[in-house]
């Protein structure tokens, strides 16, 4: 085989390499965003309650049972889309659902919860976003799955959909609850 022949082979070789990547890509999910805190202990925080009607949220509250921590804000449109879902997940017995109200005015958040319902057991008010930084929040909504030992096991970015719930969250929660 001479070099001229090799030149004609080049396209198919390049394509072969490309296909290997595409094949690998099929088994990856590009929409999952990794968290640097994966499988690490939840950073220590102690957030005051949103108002007199709720309990605050501290990292120590997350030990002992499987918990979902949803980071939300009243100014966030996707949160509004996600909210009915969270209402369905409330009081399910399998895990605790907590909220972190992120960079929000307490009165706005209260009006929001009064309008749409309050699915959370505890709501920590993170007005200056300091706990959000510790948790590595990119944007709202985000949802953390935390195991009994208080370690972050998964982070979901964006509103939770039915398929996210069935594909990632529920299987993981079931595994962690065992």
């Amino acid at each position, binding site marked *: 085989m001479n070099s001229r022949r090799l030149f004609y082979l080049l*396209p198919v070789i390049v394509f072969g390499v490309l296909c290997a*990547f*595409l094949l690998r890509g*099929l088994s990856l999910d*590009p929409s999952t965003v990794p968290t640097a805190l994966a499988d690490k202990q939840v950073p220590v925080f102690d957030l005051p309650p949103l108002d007199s009607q709720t309990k605050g949220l501290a990292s120590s509250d997350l030990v002992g049972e499987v918990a979902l921590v949803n980071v939300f804000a009243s100014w966030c449109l996707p949160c509004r889309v996600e909210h009915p879902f969270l209402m369905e997940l409330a009081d399910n017995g399998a895990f605790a659902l907590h909220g972190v109200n992120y960079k929000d005015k307490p009165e706005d958040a209260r009006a929001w919860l009064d309008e749409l319902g309050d699915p959370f057991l505890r709501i920590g008010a993170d007005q200056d976003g300091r706990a959000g930084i510790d948790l590595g929040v990119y944007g709202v909504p985000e949802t953390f799955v935390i195991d009994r030992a208080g370690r972050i096991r998964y982070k979901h970015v964006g509103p939770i959909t039915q398929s996210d719930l069935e594909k990632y969250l529920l299987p993981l929660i079931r595994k962690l609850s065992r």
Partner: protein
Amino acid sequence: MIVEIGHIALIMALIVALVQATIPMIGAARGDGRLMAVASTAAGAQWVFIVIAFLSLMNAYVTSDFSVFNVASNSHSAKPMLYKIAGVWGNHEGSLVLWVLILATFGGAIVLFGGNLPPALRARVLSVQALIAVGFLSFSLFTSNPFERVFPAPLDGNGLNPLLQDPGLAFHPPFLYLGYVGFSVAFAFAIAALIEGRVDAAWARWVRPWTLIAWSFLTIGIALGSWWAYYELGWGGWWYWDPVENASFMPWLAGTALLHSAIVCEKRDALKAWTVLLAIVAFSLSLLGTFLVRSGVLTSVHAFATDPARGVFILGFLIFVVGGSLTLFAVRAPLLKAGGLFAPVSREGGIVLNNLLFSAAAATVLLGTLYPLFIDALGAGKVSVGPPYFNTVFIPLMAPLIVLAGIAPMLAWKRADLTGVIARIKIVAAVTVLVLLWSVYRAWGNAVFGAFGIGLSAWLASSVLFDWAVRIRLFRVSALDSLQRAIRIPRAAYGMSLAHFGVALLVAGVTASSAWRTEAIQVMRQGETISVAGFEFLFHGVVRAEGPNYTADRGHFTVTRAGGLVAELWPENRFYPVQQQPTTEAAIHTTWLADLYVVVGDPDGQGGWSTRVYYNPLVPWIWLGAMVMALGGAVSLSDRRHRVGAPNRRRRRLMAGEPAAEVAR
């Protein structure tokens, strides 16, 4: 019942396509005319079956037959009729039926207009076309059946994504597919040529019009999509380098290269293997686009709902078609007789440089699009590649291309006199320098680099006009004589001039709207005025309005300039209750030199509304330019030399004493 007829028709189409993919190929190999003749009949039958399937699906949409799963998932009874029809291709399954319909239509067109093709070539081309149809029909039937029933039928459907309920987007997919699928013809010709081991001027002459059709449609399709993004997404931008946009742009870049290299192939009997490769690559990139959009390997704002089984199927098909054809290329292309050598400074030399730049551009877009996937697959983390990368690598490739487009059309074939040409284009250079100085002066202190974009545009536009003036000997002979010369210039030459002029418009629009856009984002109360780029925008507040299947907050602005009324603008914030989804409808007033673009956002709860006001200079020229480019394609297509039997007629006219120089153009 009609739905089942559609389903059966689609199955029949697959069976016919299987016959068409095999029998004529065998016939061509054996030189058996009867077997080869099967191709035309089968192509016709396949088209009829797919039309039946498509119409029955459309019927299900129009009559809101929610017992069909696809209709129930993507349509709604309260939707306007236009979007019921457009809804057919507003989803994965339905769009595949449109895809195969267009594929079969191109097959039919080859039968109809391919009367002058040698029988064996025609049989092979149709066979390869059918092979592609087999892939897409099985994809549709086995993984994405549009006719699947659902029981019990829901009372109403889920509706079409509100973002897609828009006239611009209703016609975006058909044009895009006409482009994508159109390249399948050039691809089929390339494969047939590789099997035959022969590429000659006649082959190139047959490939060119099909490439032109596909290219023109793709140009329109991309422009429509970008126009839609501009007024519907509400950010005043028109191109986001999103993976799906890139998926349509890559075949366009390769197709543009093919369009040019095929000319060299026809005129100079050179660049044969390269042209064949480009034909394969252009269609392969179309297929790759299909894979990226429908498999979910990349995140994008407008990827279809995805399913790994579909991804595996398309990837398998991609490997078969592209891998197979590139292997065929590796084996057969070295056997193609190389054409004559040529001088670097010549028309063909210019086209080779054009091809290098376009290929490099396509490669950079491909790399940028797939880079996140490469990194992720290597386990090296998650990255996203955005406009900074694309702008950094793309602009340096496009700038020399535009300089080249201003000069290469004036070079002669074989060996050109560069110094002569440069001496001739003094006027073009002078115009360019003047425009450049003027725009540097106007832009001083404010994105001066934009001035160079305007200079490039002026260079290309003035060179196109100058070239035309020289050809008709404007002001050198009498006006009547010039007119006669203007009429005698072949339409293909006008096509090229129009297309290049369109590029100049596009470049000006792109540059000005990127470099000198003014925007103002604020909270406004009723009666407040904001001043942007010399225009006064008076805000009259927001009223609630009802649409056919949405409610809207409709803002009202009065735009004045120096006291005179310019426009009344009514931007909307729509909410579609069926999908629980909001959309933004920007209000746009265009002066053709600029767009005034207004978006109304959310209320601040204290009587004010967030509003965004943009002044986008020259932005309409982007789409105007794209339309002029497509028009250039159409004009070129109407050239008699591209028509059936044209070569014979041309030869006769040549003997009758037509000026040879013009024919050579």
